[in-house]
């Protein structure tokens, strides 16, 4: 079996004389500056709502409404028996709303229980206006399955956490995750989809079939 030193030595030997110059098409030295996009993102919130809609997500609540009103409305449409709830700060109070509505909350960190839930509710560490993505952090949520296993995912996103471009997250990872990266960060954009059969878009193949976004303060 090859060990690290042998492996890297082979790579070093290959590069002994560097990469040969390409005389026909010389290598450029264009810097990797932040990407400039054409869509107007000056109204970050408006752009986020538009892009999220384009990606197939549904906006189900705005900061003007009380969270429990929004959650109850979602419960009326989805009619879940069991709900998985994350530990994101945006989810504070959600468990009480569910309990008072007589809905069971799945046991945390129990894969089978979360898989059996009809609805997963999480917060998000960020939203991205260009793409309509929400960023879900496993350490903040204390788990990663509530956004993945149930057929419907409701994400509560603070409007103050919406940035313009993916680069505003990726190029500032240290600011977003000052205590180091969690084991899992996922950018979620719309419902799970596949185009593997004749390129026809089908939703909900493995992840949630519906992505609901409620904007909170």
């Amino acid at each position, binding site marked *: *079996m*090859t*060990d*690290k030193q042998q*492996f*890297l030595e*082979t*790579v070093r030997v*290959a*590069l002994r*004389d*560097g*990469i*040969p110059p*390409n005389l026909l*098409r010389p*290598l450029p030295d*264009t*810097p*990797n500056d932040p*990407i*400039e*996009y054409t869509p107007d993102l000056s109204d970050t919130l408006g752009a986020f709502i538009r*892009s999220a809609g384009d990606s197939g997500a549904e906006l189900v609540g705005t900061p003007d409404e009380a969270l429990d009103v929004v959650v109850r409305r979602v419960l009326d449409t989805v009619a879940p028996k069991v709900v998985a709830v994350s530990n994101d700060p945006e989810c504070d109070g959600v468990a009480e709303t569910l309990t008072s509505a007589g809905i069971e909350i799945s046991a*945390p960190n129990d*894969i*089978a229980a979360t898989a059996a839930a009809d609805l997963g509710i999480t917060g998000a560490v960020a939203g991205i206006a*260009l*793409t309509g993505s929400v960023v879900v952090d*496993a*350490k903040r949520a*204390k788990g*990663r*399955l509530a956004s*993945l296993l149930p057929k419907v995912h409701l994400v509560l996103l603070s409007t103050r956490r919406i940035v313009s471009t*993916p*680069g505003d997250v*990726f190029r500032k990872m240290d600011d977003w995750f000052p205590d180091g*990266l969690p*084991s*899992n*960060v*996922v950018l*979620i*954009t719309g*419902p*799970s*989809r*596949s*185009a*593997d*059969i*004749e*390129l026809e878009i*089908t939703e*909900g*193949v*493995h*992840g*949630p079939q519906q992505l609901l976004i409620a904007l909170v303060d």
Partner: protein
Amino acid sequence: MTVIPIEELTLRQRTAVAVDEPRLRISLERATDTLSSRQSTAYGQFADPERLRSAARAAKAQVLSRLPDVLEQLADRLEASGVVVHWASTDREACDVVTTIAMERGVRRVVKSKSMLTEEIGLNQALDGIGVEVTETDLGEWIIQLAGETPSHIIVPAIHRDRAQCRDALQTVSDEPLGDAPQDLAAFAREALRSRFLAADMGISGVNFAVAESGSLILVTNEGNGRLTTSVPPIHVAMLGMERVLESWDQLDLFLALLTRAATGQPITTYVSAITGPAQAEEGEGPEEVHVVIVDNGRSEILGTEFTEMLACIRCGACLNACPVYRVTGGHAYGWVYPGPMGAVLTPLLLESEAAGEVADASSLCGACWEACPVGIPLQDMLLALRRRQAEEATLAERTAWRVWAAAWSRPSTYRASLRTGAIATGMFDPSSLRGPVRRWSDGREMPKVPKRSFRQQWKESRQ
């Protein structure tokens, strides 16, 4: 259409089989047209797409020029986050690493998310060999696994099958009769595969990019099977081609923006996961064990040569969709796991056999691949260079024959004589009668039809 092994039929024969499939041509044309036009639309979000392409080409060259250091940093960061790092020089070693982990942990069931590298190294067969049940969980990949095929497109593996053919493959594992609506087939797959995810002892994934500065593995998916594969089973094994490493998150921003737009025309895929180590104590959910297998398998032999830039390939499939050859033949005619222009360059470089070398001929050198490539790899220059290399390595017999021909046709008298001989000889000569090494050359080649009377003779006669 089933796989045509590269050693059994020549390129021309494989192509002949492919173009003879009317349904394949319809599926391919529709799919490649759609994907190409989605790419152009998605690039419209960039203020200056050419500049990004140029920045990506520059960034990749920079990473490759300091690859040992970047890999070392990656390995250090991975280990610091609790990942077990393995190094594999060959396909065989890479498979051994995974089968050893599987045997030591008593793994019986594996779920996989789509990975071209595992196709390249034959991992499924290796696991099958030790009695581990492997399930491909990407919808297209599962369809072709059930059909006993290999992917014919690196992004849309079942691109060569229409909905009825996809249904037929899935029907083999369904007790109920299935319709052929894609939505229903996807719903069936969700149901059928969910229990396999929950029962799996190990998840195996590829890696789209590894970010060295934090030791993070980036997975770009739409269905969610990649998330399930890396989150539900207690062990996650990630297979990483050594060239897929980036130095920084700044670079990831650039390459991700290009990848999703070039591959499927999406501003971003449904899921982009960044995995950094196994689950942490306070997270509760996620794998307890994460392994990364860093694979060379011929890549270091490309590094430092005139083909180095091929290692900048991010496997988006844009060159396939743009290629006039791929659009007609599909992926199986290329004979190995990587089709299209990127495959026509990679296959000869990674396989190093005579049969593989021929794949470089599957191109019109039109340069559409280069134009479509989001990292600006000069693919057509490389195809030409590969042909030149092949010509230089041609057998002595072939080179002597060409020299005799060149000498003969340089003098009017011997040229005229050769035409007369040619007319007689071709009538008598049957290339399939050849034996030995010459036979390999003659297979798939046809003798040109030489007219009974040459142009010179006809010209003379007409003037009389």
